[in-house]
């Protein structure tokens, strides 16, 4: 926890690459997480991974349609952040939101069914992959309009502030959001109103083909925080424990009424921007291979190797594999979206 707090309080936390061989090794108590919690985190990360792999295949097989944005390689961020949240805290997300929905606890069946455009999907097929919502789990909306997730989370945080509700709102955003004016407006508003919000920028190095380092002159997005008068922190987004620690401190700060935090989680987008992306136009295969060498799931395994039996993890994997197969089957076997609902819910 102390390390987390340390990270949070400083914008100038050392860049990921300078930190030697990762924080977990330096933190034998694994941030105070007990075995059940560790398994939960692993389950989340593994579920996201399997989900993306499975849906991608389904898409390639023609079972799914519409755009598809995989969050493979970024699993540690939603897993770490959401481990620091309560069910009634809320999360908003982007076009790349499957991982966030899963980490916040949304159920796989209705998520899958939504991707499949089925009546049993969370939104009855009206939303699709980029608009999953599960209010029940505090997953209150994706906005594929870049910058939109910050708007929604700021508003949710405002509602908590107005009602004195000790809940926290987290916005997941991509590095691309930092170019948008609303990013600035939103962070500034949250800062001056001391809203219980946490802004998590998943800096995966690219906004589609646009490199994060082309977008601004500063190397760290978290450095923006200072301008708004809020703490900004850079974390290694491959390391779920660093993410968790930073999130825990930020969430505690928000819940205590001390205002928002900007967390920049450095990571890498393993897949193309979307399925079918012509990646070769802007990055080398080599670069992707190298980045994939640093796998958040592997890092986790290493970190917990002295605490958890391989069998425990294998048990989680087997359970998740089945859950995802079930969910995909549920979706595939569900009735199509009902055309009679098409004209309902508007005005």
């Amino acid at each position, binding site marked *: 926890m102390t390390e987390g707090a340390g990270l949070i309080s400083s914008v100038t936390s050392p860049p990921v690459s300078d930190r030697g061989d990762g924080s977990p090794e330096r933190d034998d108590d694994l941030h105070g997480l007990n075995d059940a919690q560790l398994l939960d985190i692993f389950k989340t990360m593994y579920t996201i991974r399997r989900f993306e792999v499975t849906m991608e295949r389904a898409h390639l097989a023609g079972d799914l349609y519409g755009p598809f944005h995989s969050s493979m390689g970024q699993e540690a961020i939603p897993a770490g952040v959401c481990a620091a949240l309560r069910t009634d805290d*809320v999360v*908003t997300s982007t076009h790349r939101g499957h991982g966030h929905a899963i980490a916040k606890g949304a159920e796989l069946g209705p998520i899958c069914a939504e991707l499949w455009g089925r009546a049993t*999907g*969370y*939104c*009855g*097929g*009206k*939303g699709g992959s980029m*608009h999953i*919502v*599960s*209010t029940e789990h505090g997953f*209150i*909306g994706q*906005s594929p*309009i870049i910058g*939109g997730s*910050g*708007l*929604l*989370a*700021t*508003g*949710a*945080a*405002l*509602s*908590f502030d*107005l*009602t004195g509700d000790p809940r926290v*709102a987290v916005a997941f955003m991509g590095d691309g959001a930092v170019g948008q*004016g*609303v990013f600035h*407006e*939103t962070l*500034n*508003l949250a800062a*001056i*109103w001391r809203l219980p919000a946490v802004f998590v920028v998943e800096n995966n190095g690219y906004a589609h083909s646009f490199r994060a380092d082309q977008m601004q002159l500063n190397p760290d997005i978290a450095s923006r925080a200072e301008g708004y008068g809020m703490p900004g922190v850079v974390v290694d987004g491959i390391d779920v424990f660093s993410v968790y620690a930073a999130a825990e401190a930020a969430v505690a700060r928000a819940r205590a009424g001390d205002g928002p935090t900007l967390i920049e989680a450095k990571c890498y987008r393993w897949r193309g921007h979307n399925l079918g992306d012509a990646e070769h136009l802007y990055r080398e295969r080599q670069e992707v291979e190298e980045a994939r060498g640093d796998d958040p799931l592997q890092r986790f395994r290493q970190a917990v190797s002295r605490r958890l039996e391989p069998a425990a993890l294998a048990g989680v994997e087997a359970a998740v594999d089945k859950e995802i197969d079930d969910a995909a089957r549920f979706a595939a076997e569900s009735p199509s979206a009902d055309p009679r609902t098409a004209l*309902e*819910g*508007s*005005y």
Partner: protein
Amino acid sequence: MREITFIEAVREAQAEALVSDDRVFIMGQEIGSYGGVFRATQDFVRRFGDHRVRDMPIAEQSMLGAGVGAAVMGMRPIVEVMFMDFVACGMDAIVNHAAKMRYMSGDQLRAPMVIRTQGGSGTHHGSQHSQTLESWFLHVPGLAVVVPSVPQDVKGLFKTSVELEHPVLFVEHRALYRTTGPVTDPVAPIPLGEGVVRRRGEDVTVAAVGKSVHQALAAALELEEEGVSVEVIDLRTLVPMDVEIVLESLSRTHRLVVAHEAVERGGWAGELVARVVAEGFDELDAPPLRAGSKATPIPFARELEAAMISDERLIARRIRESLDLAEYPA
């Protein structure tokens, strides 16, 4: 009955909402200590606290977007966009977020909020502070559009708006702020989508909202002296739009003029005309005509504004054209 000004009605409507519903709060620029640039929130900070009456930096997109976020969590935000021209600065929050939340979430999220704004010409604020832009929002499914013309309706329509389970664009014309009208105590909620006949007439029907209703009434008076009897309908809301009341009127007058200060090209009069023609073609003895502003930005100088803005002279002219007393177009 009590006579109050239009702006007093706006103020009372908002205050009553704040009093009766804990979920209501207000965001906007100058709404705090200043009480609103048009006094719509005068004394509100003292009465309701700066927590619920939130003065804020100039940041329309996030003001409206935060409204959406708060609304989906159960609040009832009133967001004041100081001049209607500035909705252009917050269009994404309104169109892509507020209006679509309920539908695209399969009704899991709702964004009930009232976006109050004012616009219109006559105060010589120039091209970027005088527009009448409500027509855009007919084309944005998911949003109600309300344009009151008298204090009683301000209060009655606001009550309904603040309780609607959808976002509402509530549009005021600033030239009306100092006009007065009688109000009942209390004012009963007025359903959205119910127009009202403001003046009975036999020869031509004029349909309008907001300030144009008053101009239509003035034109009707003028034409009365020429022996022409004009019926004036105040639609009161544009979404939903009370086409039935217009069709009913046409079944008696058989002639229609639709008046609005908004630029005629692409304005909502086209929508009404298209619906009336589709649904009441056989009732029409003459082509429905529109009295909207010419397709230019609003110029600063009086003489220029007069040359392009829709006003009672233009409405009167269109009425005459509709009766074949003058030649269209002009």
